[in-house]
């Protein structure tokens, strides 16, 4: 499998507080990477790095061998735990928005045939996530699970190279969460997605992922706890999952 995203000697520092230190790893295309770790171990920073919400202090992050600009872009989709959908748009409006932004730079609205085409695409995606009969509902009328389904549809309609999930199922009750696990696995294989998911739920991390990375501080100075950052302390390929999608062995480089 080819490497999609590479971290090369990446450090993240806020002032003199080191959050991530000397992180080097590669993420292959079509992998489902779960990121776990205690609070404050840099999981969210790691996600923000890929998202482009912030840049590394040192080192570089390469997407397809090209350094990432420290700005969000349509090649990386995101589903947050909350606030991922726009409350003023219906499900359909939320999903079409991505296409409207790309195709109508000035008005960000489509009309006529272009709108019908975009609508068709959006309906198809909403049906794929199980919202086929809730096209005209507003987020406030939806349950938490439906909102997350909508957020996923909204991201996938842009066909992102990487889909980032920031504790996407953390606020859902267990039954709904199980449904969402089935859905995301299905979407992952149907659309050949590359997914990086941050989660607090270790069982979820192992049951969904093809690879689990645990971020934590390897060293700890009791007098200056902020001076050591997190590294990938465990990096576990889950073999049988990997073999489901390809017979090739996954190569992982850790420092």
């Amino acid at each position: 499998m080819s490497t999609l995203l590479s971290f090369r000697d990446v450090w993240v520092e806020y002032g003199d507080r080191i959050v991530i230190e000397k992180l080097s790893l590669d993420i292959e295309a079509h992998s489902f990477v779960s990121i776990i770790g205690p609070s404050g171990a840099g999981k969210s920073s790691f996600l923000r790095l890929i998202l482009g919400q912030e840049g590394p202090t040192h080192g570089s992050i390469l997407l397809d061998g090209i350094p990432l600009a420290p700005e969000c872009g349509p090649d990386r989709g995101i589903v947050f735990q909350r606030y991922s959908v726009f409350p003023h748009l219906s499900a359909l409006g939320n999903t079409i928005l991505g296409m409207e932004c790309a195709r109508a730079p000035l008005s960000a609205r489509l009309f006529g045939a272009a709108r019908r085409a975009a609508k068709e695409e959006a309906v198809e995606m909403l049906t794929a996530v199980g919202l086929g009969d809730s096209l005209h509902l507003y987020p406030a009328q939806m349950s938490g699970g439906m909102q997350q389904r909508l957020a996923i549809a909204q991201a996938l309609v842009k066909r992102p190279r990487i889909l980032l999930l920031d504790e996407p199922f953390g606020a859902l009750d267990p039954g709904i969460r199980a449904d969402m696990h089935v859905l995301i696995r299905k979407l992952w294989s149907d659309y050949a997605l590359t997914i990086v998911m941050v989660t607090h739920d270790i069982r979820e991390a192992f049951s969904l992922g093809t690879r689990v990375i645990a971020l934590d501080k390897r060293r700890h100075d009791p007098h200056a706890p902020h001076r050591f950052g997190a590294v990938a302390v465990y990096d576990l390929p889950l073999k049988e999952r990997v073999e489901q999608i390809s017979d090739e062995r996954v190569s992982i480089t850790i420092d």
Partner: protein
Amino acid sequence: MRWVNRQLRRSDRLLLGALPILLLAVAYLLVAASRHAANPADKILPLPSSMVQSMSVLMFQPDQLTGQLVFWADTLASLQRLGIGLGISTLMAICVGLALGALPPVRATFGPLVTGIAVIPPIALLPILFIALGLGETAKVALIVVGIAPVMIRDIAAHVAALPREQIIKAQTLGASSWQVMIRVALPQAMPRLLQAMRLSLGPAWVFLISAEAIASDVGLGYRIFLVRRYLSMDVIIPYVAWIALLAIAMDVTLTFLSRRLFPWAHGDNH
């Protein structure tokens, strides 16, 4: 049952709401009647009959000098000034507030200026406006705009800046540019807030309108009130004040209705 839990039926709510108003009216009538019993020529608390009499002259008999129906000419002039002032302020709130709220460089550049203008008491600027713009309509409208626009701008800017960061990030991952984030994410979500800001600005807008009309004008509700004050004509002042209150309530109700009608998603009901 605790009072915090007592919910009233709609009819009971209307009845209870009307009660204090009726009591106040009855109290006024009693006091006015007792004063008139003592002095039939009392002007301080006029009876309804004299109010009706003097108002019907203003409403239905053309003025000898101008040939206009004074009451309606006053109403039209005041509403026009108020409407233009409120309209300009709303437009400024949307354009400037959106840019201030959504674009950090714009906020850094113009935020202090807007704050500075907002803390100046607008009435203190009235002489400047009269000197710079003359005594015509422009100065009166300008006073309303100077008075309410900065507050509205700051309100909209704060609302836009407080939109969840996740939404702005999400929009960018959907390929939105700064402009697209502003018009498709920030603007629609600022609209209900804008109507709310208009409602809250109506009170100050009336204050500035009446002030401007009181000082230099030849027509308008505020002008008339301050004119007839010289003759202690409470029989005109009281109906005029009641009319202003009625107009203000009508505008408030209209704005609330519009907000519910146009932006059902912002009101949390079942659309």
